[in-house]
């Protein structure tokens, strides 16, 4: 084995030694993945009529919004010239997958999330506008867009519109996160990234992480509010998490087996990389701790009758490991793809700083920020539904 000099082993093209995309670019697909996944969970009830997960419908939407608001921040921090990012709106290069970011983001934020949340909450917003004193009163008033019409017919129209938006929202969510997979998957220069499976793998791992996130937030929120957890709801979410995870795992295994079987010119170099530099993050964290263990735990819950406290503990552990595993997957794709030389003759290393613009500290901050925003959103637009179901005209409305 060759010696390692300045973190470089073997030969790398001189300009390749420094990594171009840092932990911030790991964060971005992780965050948009959470958005897409949370939205898919919400759409389970709205479009596919899985009634059991209704208690998490609004929470899932607010979670998606909170994370979507933070999503552009890692990109802005990473850009050499963030003040020029408006250029993607005025001269988007149509051959570049990255160019669609601005429009897909805006479309998803405005037309899908904000509209769907507005339509679902409108009855509450009107009521809150009338009943809330102080400066918040004006905020709610602005949110009503001047209309106080909450007649049954208006609410039925809202419901219908919301349904249509969710239906549009599902492929939009796929596009929001799928294009990120395409950004990597279409780079022919990089064999670790270049595969048509990439957008699909990204999508399914996004759904897994998003569902796990909402599950964890729901459990945490109920605990904080000292309310009982709706176990049928939680069991159903866990079941869908399990199904989605099985598909995600199969896709990743397919990619791996395909690579090993074809063994093209890049294989030796990539294989060595996985066995050395990527061993901890890929094999130990992503595959074993982040996929195999949570899958086993979730499977256990499906086949063995466990008590409620045991199931809650199992879901919490499985959910947390899942989130770590999916983050590791993004890490292994983004960072892993830059650790080996395109000459297939060498490797470099990633030096993660702490308190720099692209360091660990801002990354931790960017993961905490959406939770803070979510807390604000939950206070502004409480997602908790009354124990009994429908109020007049609004199937998802009502505040406890």
């Amino acid at each position, binding site marked *: 084995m060759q010696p390692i000099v300045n973190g470089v082993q073997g030969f790398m093209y001189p300009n390749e030694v420094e990594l171009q995309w840092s932990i911030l670019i790991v964060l971005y697909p992780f965050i948009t993945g959470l958005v897409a996944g949370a939205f898919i969970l919400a759409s389970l009830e709205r479009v596919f009529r899985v009634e059991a997960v209704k208690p998490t419908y609004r929470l899932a939407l607010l979670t998606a919004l909170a994370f979507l608001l933070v999503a552009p921040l890692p990109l802005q921090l990473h850009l050499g010239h963030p003040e020029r990012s*408006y250029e993607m*709106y*005025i*001269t988007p*290069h149509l051959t570049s997958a990255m160019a669609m970011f601005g429009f897909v983001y805006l479309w998803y934020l*405005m*037309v899908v999330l904000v*509209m769907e949340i*507005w339509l679902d909450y*409108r009855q509450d917003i009107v009521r809150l506008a009338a009943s809330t004193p102080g400066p918040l009163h004006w905020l709610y008033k602005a949110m*009503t*867009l*001047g*209309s106080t*019409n909450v*007649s049954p*017919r*208006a609410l039925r*129209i809202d419901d219908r*519109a919301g349904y249509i938006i969710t239906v549009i929202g599902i492929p939009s969510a796929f596009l929001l996160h799928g294009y990120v997979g395409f950004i990597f998957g279409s780079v022919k220069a990089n064999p670790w990234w270049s595969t048509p499976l990439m957008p699909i793998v990204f999508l399914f791992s996004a759904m897994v992480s998003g569902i796990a996130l909402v599950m964890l937030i729901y459990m945490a929120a109920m605990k904080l509010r000292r309310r009982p957890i709706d176990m049928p709801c939680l069991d159903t979410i866990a079941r869908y998490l399990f199904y989605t995870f099985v598909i995600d795992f199969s896709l990743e295994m397919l990619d791996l087996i395909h690579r090993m079987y074809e063994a093209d010119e890049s294989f030796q170099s990539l294989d060595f990389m996985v066995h050395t530099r990527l061993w901890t993050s890929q094999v130990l964290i992503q595959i074993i701790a982040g996929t195999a263990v949570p899958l086993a735990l979730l499977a256990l819950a499906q086949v063995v009758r466990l008590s409620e406290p045991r199931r809650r503990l199992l879901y919490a552990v499985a959910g947390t490991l899942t989130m770590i595993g999916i983050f590791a997957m993004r890490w292994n794709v983004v960072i892993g793809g830059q650790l080996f030389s395109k000459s297939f003759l060498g490797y470099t290393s990633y030096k993660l700083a702490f308190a720099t613009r692209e360091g660990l500290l801002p990354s931790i901050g960017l993961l905490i920020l959406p939770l803070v925003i979510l807390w604000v959103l939950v206070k502004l637009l409480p997602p908790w539904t009354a124990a009994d179901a429908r109020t007049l005209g609004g199937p998802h409305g009502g505040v406890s």
Partner: protein
Amino acid sequence: MKDAAHLLRLAGLFAVGIVLFLLIRRELVPAGFGEYGFFRPAAMDAVRARPMIYAGRTTCEMCHEGELKLLQSGKHAHVGCEACHGPQAKHADDSSSIKPVLPTPHLLCPVCHEVNSAKPKGFPQVVAKEHSGGAECTTCHNPHRPLPVGLGAEGIK
């Protein structure tokens, strides 16, 4: 459609936003963008406008005819002047006040002529220290006409 008025209001807001976007976009797109391809044509001009640091051999030849004649008759006929003398555009622009510093032979010549197994086999290579015995390269070799030996530094004008 009184019951859908709020939706119409929202649609109106979106329409205003889109119009605003299109207007602002028209202002911000750089001049001439797309004329030659998907880019700002002034960028091509910007790259072309950079000043030169190396003068180029044809410029040197305009004044240094003696050296040129010597070069053409020897093994270094196709070696550019600035390959050894370094960038001289400033000297070419103002040759009276800016004089180039002559390179030190025993530091310069081995750059090309020191033995290295990766160099093409027919290329003249020596172990400089053994070959010269400590003497300066120009003791025996005229850099403008390196062979035959014996012309030495006196051969340089």
